[in-house]
């Protein structure tokens, strides 16, 4: 865990060092849907862009204060030169309106050596959507080939997918062990593990995870019967403040599983490697679950998915974590909440801001929730 904590405590220094150590170019992939495998297969290092931990300064000259945390933090980092170690960026701009702002800002103020704008489709029924997604991935691949001057063969793409799938299965194993031994890792540590996977080369991360899994398998933990199991849901694109995760545990709750982006959503769904690898990546993107409010899926309800996860884990309630000024989640949330009310599932929503204004207010909400489901 110490290596993982080191990577996530200063991702800027880690990724800058990585570039030197590996002597490879770094491509920042904006969360949540960029297929990193294609970047990996181009012999570049894909790194998922993160929300920094500093207040936004110059960035507010380019994006308004009512944009979400990662949007403002990323633009701020970029225009302040904090991301100068990145050689290129990939943005899936149909994910939300805010992501659509990046290419222009980056082109004008950062001038990256490589930039790709992805237009992955919303998931409507029919073959057209699949063709659309596939064409986009083909053009993504071609743009990387143009950038490096090297062709990406099917074999190298398949190899990259295998490495990524291995990472997914190791991460799934970490979650399985946590489900079986709640409390074996703190919620914050689990988030650090997933986040480090987004920052480290997957080969290195796989090595770390293999060791970690072994240690977890051997370790026994005291049963945490008195603790109330809860499932955090949401927090698109970015890390949840660790203080909030600690608070959940300090208040007598425990997280056996989650439905967070920097959590189980990141590694869900291995790529099915039968046949053409680009087709397989398109199919993974077009998988409707875990449901993401940025994909426009309406025949499956996120609330039902969350409730299932809660019941599978024998948990007592759901903590919705909504990133402030995240339109996709905000638009979905009323439906989600109605579903909770309809099914009688205890749920509380906490809003996560880049600049925490009052942890006290979050504490009162979480403590009241713990009291409610704990029968006080």
């Amino acid at each position: 865990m110490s290596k993982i904590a080191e990577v996530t405590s200063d991702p800027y220094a880690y990724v800058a060092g990585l570039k030197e150590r590996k002597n490879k170019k770094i491509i920042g992939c904006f969360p949540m849907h960029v297929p990193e495998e294609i970047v990996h297969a181009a012999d570049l290092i894909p790194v998922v862009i993160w929300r920094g931990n500093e207040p936004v300064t110059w960035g507010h000259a380019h994006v308004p204060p009512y944009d979400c945390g990662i949007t403002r933090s990323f633009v701020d980092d970029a225009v302040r030169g904090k991301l100068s170690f990145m050689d290129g960026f990939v943005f899936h701009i149909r994910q939300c309106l805010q992501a659509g702002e990046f290419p222009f800002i980056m082109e004008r103020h950062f001038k990256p050596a490589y930039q790709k704008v992805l237009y992955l489709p919303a998931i409507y029924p029919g073959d057209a959507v699949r063709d659309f997604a596939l064409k986009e991935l083909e053009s993504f691949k071609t743009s990387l080939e143009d950038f490096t001057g090297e062709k990406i063969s099917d074999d190298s793409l398949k190899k990259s997918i295998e490495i990524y799938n291995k990472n997914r299965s190791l991460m799934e194993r970490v979650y399985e062990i946590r489900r079986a031994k709640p409390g074996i890792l703190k919620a914050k540590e689990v988030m650090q593990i997933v986040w480090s996977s987004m920052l480290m080369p997957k080969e290195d991360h796989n090595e770390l995870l293999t060791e970690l899994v072994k240690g977890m398998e051997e370790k026994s933990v005291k049963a945490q019967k008195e603790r109330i199991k809860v499932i955090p849901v949401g927090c698109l694109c970015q890390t949840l403040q660790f203080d909030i995760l600690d608070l959940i545990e300090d208040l007598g709750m425990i997280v056996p599983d989650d439905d967070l982006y920097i959590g189980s959503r990141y590694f869900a769904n291995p790529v099915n490697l039968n046949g053409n690898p680009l087709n397989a990546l398109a199919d993974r993107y077009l998988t409707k679950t875990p449901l993401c409010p940025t994909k426009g899926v309406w025949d499956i309800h996120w609330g039902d998915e969350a409730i299932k996860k809660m019941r599978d884990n024998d948990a007592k309630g759901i903590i919705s974590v909504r990133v402030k000024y995240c339109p996709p989640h905000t638009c979905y949330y009323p439906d989600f909440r109605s579903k909770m009310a309809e099914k009688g599932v205890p749920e509380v929503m906490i809003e996560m801001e880049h600049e925490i204004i009052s942890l006290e207010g979050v504490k009162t909400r979480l403590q009241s929730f713990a009291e409610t489901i704990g029968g006080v």
Partner: protein
Amino acid sequence: MAVVVGVDVGSLCTKTVILDGDGKILSYDIMRSGHYYKGAAKESIENALKSAGLKKGDISYTLGTGYGRGAVAEADAEVTEITCHARGAARLFPEVHTVIDIGGQDSKVIGIGENSRVVNFVMNDKCAAGTGRFLEVMALALSVDISEMGDLFFASKEKVDVSSMCTVFAESEVISLFARGHKKADIAAGIAHAIARRIMGMVGQVGLREKVVMSGGVAKNAGVVRAIEERIETSLLVPYEPQIVGAFGAAIIASERMSTTIG
């Protein structure tokens, strides 16, 4: 006699309730919290003990609640004000299903289910809009004592809209309404309706289920109570002393914990 104490340290006022072994209120105290919550809690407990003719040593269990619940050095445990308001309101009015609490600097709407337990809640603690502090600032802008605000509501003859709920902007809006020749009573009524509009939004999130209790210091303003009643189209149950409902709830939970310990 198992005497228990509930202390509700709010951002504006600290309230203490002392109960005897039968759950009867022996005394209560309300004082300003000031800037030193620990001291306020201590002083409020001492005041309440004095009025009940009791000593510190008579207390069997103390439970802290409210924004400053962590600062009650005398407390054996702490529980949030949401749970305490629900419990207090349900003891006073067993048929309650919704509590509207407007305190000094925050407001909440709480849904209550079986056994007086909280089923859902929303709280606005982001700004002082529509809270006791807001009313204080508005009273100042109207040059009236806060206790007169309620009566002014009923003297209103003309409808005046106060659109802003931000304490700062509403203050300047009130001044400009004066400049346009509107009467104090009409502006006071406009302020009460603005608070009611805001509360209605929160009630909508929790879902209105009768009976509805209103607690917190703002419930002492009959104008705001009436304005909310008009919006939610039902009458509100207001306790004799709405400000101590949270402390009362804390004391009830304290006595439940005592009986579990003794039992």
